């Protein structure tokens, strides 16, 4: 009798073991929930976005090369007017221009913070970049609207709304992202690289330019791609300054639009399931795919960079 009871106790899981199992499963389920959310987002947006092509029978060619955006109406040649090219061009233009403008500033600042004056870098520039990251995008949009747009209007003519204003606003927005990631990659360059270069008689600048920046190139590229991803996905700040005209941009100061600006401005005015609505979801899908692409690019650069070391 006694033995049987003991055997039963030994065969059964103890309270602690059950608690352990419970905890393990609980934390795993939290993780799986996040996983499910990510899959959910991709599946939902993809189904919605693809229905333009499969339910409403818009051809990929019309969507990606058409320049007339007015879903629900027809172009003069009889096709549906769902040409997303102006928005795609707008998005890429502001993203690339913003990256081109802010990369030199960001690298310069990061080099200053790590190589020239680390003390001042940590004391002044570190908090400065953190604060810049913290300012919400609507505030950037508001400042863009009340400072940048009038400035562009008075200096370059036009209405002030357009790609150029969008570029200025995004330049400031992605600057801190690129700076802080570049700083990390510069800091990870081993100290003896610099010592070796200086010992060979190279000047400080030669060491920075020919040794440190070369060694940190993969990290800097990652930083720039992250900045571009942020610029590409930024919605409100751009929407407030770009003018929101779904036209091919003729020059940098004519009103234009981006994928995100059309999405934020248009989603509230369409009925679920209509062609107008589906076309907007296709824009969201393009946005999602580009975001995945930027991710892939970062992984690719990371692997290449790691291989070289």
């Amino acid at each position, binding site marked *: 009798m006694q033995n049987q009871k003991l055997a039963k106790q030994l065969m059964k899981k103890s309270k*602690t*073991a059950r*608690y*352990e199992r*419970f*905890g*393990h499963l*609980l*934390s795993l389920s*939290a*993780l799986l*929930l*996040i*996983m499910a*959310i*990510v899959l*959910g*987002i991709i599946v*939902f*947006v993809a189904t919605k976005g693809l229905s333009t092509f499969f339910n409403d029978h818009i051809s990929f060619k019309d969507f990606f090369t058409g320049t007339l955006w007015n879903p629900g109406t027809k172009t003069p040649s009889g096709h549906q007017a769902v040409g997303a090219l102006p928005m795609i061009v707008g998005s890429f233009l502001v993203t690339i221009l913003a990256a081109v403008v802010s990369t030199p*500033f960001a690298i*310069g*600042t990061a080099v*200053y913070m790590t190589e*020239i*004056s680390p003390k001042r*870098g940590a004391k002044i*520039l570190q908090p*400065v970049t953190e*604060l810049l990251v*913290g*300012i*919400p*995008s*609507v*505030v950037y*949009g*508001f*400042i863009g*609207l*009340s400072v940048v747009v009038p400035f562009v209007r008075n200096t370059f003519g036009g209405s002030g709304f357009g790609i150029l204003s969008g570029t200025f606003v995004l330049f*400031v927005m992605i*600057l801190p992202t690129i700076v802080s990631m570049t700083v990390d990659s510069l800091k990870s360059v081993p100290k003896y690289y610099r010592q070796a270069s200086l010992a060979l008689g190279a*000047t400080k*600048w*030669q060491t*920075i330019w020919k040794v440190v920046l070369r060694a940190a190139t993969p990290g800097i590229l990652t930083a720039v791609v992250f900045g571009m991803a942020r610029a*590409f*996905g930024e*919605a*409100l700040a751009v929407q*407030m300054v770009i003018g929101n005209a779904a036209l091919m941009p003729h020059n940098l100061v004519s009103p234009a639009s981006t994928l*995100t600006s059309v999405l934020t401005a248009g*989603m*509230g005015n369409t009925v679920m399931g209509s062609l107008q609505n589906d076309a907007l979801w296709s824009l*969201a899908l393009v*946005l999602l795919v580009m*975001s*995945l692409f930027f*991710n892939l690019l970062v992984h690719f650069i990371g692997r290449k960079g790691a291989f070289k070391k």
Partner: protein
Amino acid sequence: MNRSQKQSRIAIAALRGIAGFVVLILAFLIGYIFITGLPNVSWHFLTTPAKAFTSGGGIGIQLFNSFYLLVLAMLISLPIALGASIYLNEYAKDNWFTGMIRTAIEILSSLPSVVVGLFGFLLFVVQFNYGFSIISGALTLTIFNLPLLTRNIEETLSGVSDDQRQGGLGLGLSKYETIIHIVVPAALPGIISGIILCSGRVFGEAAALIYTAGQSAPALNFGDWNPFNIDSPLSPLRPAETLAVHIWKINSEGIMPDLTKVSSGSAAVLVLAILIFNFSARYIGRKVFEKMTSI
């Protein structure tokens, strides 16, 4: 001085100039926000409801909505993020499954917030039929917040020394008991800093909320705290325009005569709140640490 030394001097001076320029940009931004904004901020401005067509409106309801949404989103996302980061840091083995999950979290954190907002709109507003409401907004903000909070907490957990874990296991605690009773408390100051830092980001978010929490702020009855009444401030099913959405909304289609005053005032309040979040994060984390270790 030879040529390369001169070159070095000039280049370094240029780098100094660039760094100075970046500081100037921030100084200008902060200066502009506060100098144009703070004169418009008064107790009246902070407590009265907004007016759509006449001047003299405030941001009372929007401010309340922002904080309420922030608290709700944090309450929902904290247990999930904590669980996920515990698994990632303590249980996960280094295999393809973990790699896949880390990639998924990375993807989620780099998704444009407008895409997260549209997903929230599709799932919570349309599919679950919650409408434009606090609850839709809070759930969407949770999705927006999860990757960053998870990463923050995981970093803090990995900073806890292994001696602590060995101590717990050596005393005969199970792994989970060690985590809950030793590792998480040891990481608490860092976790609290992380929560406050994420709060700043959530507080300023607008793109994810436009189509989930809605763009209108109906009048509230601040004498009624029963969450089941639709005009109670706590009601989860009422539409709730936040401060950040308000700035966007009035600048896009507002027609009140004191539009610039209201938006610059709101921007100043928003930035001030976020600065307080950022500065208090480290201070509060340190205070908690001192209190817990009784130094």
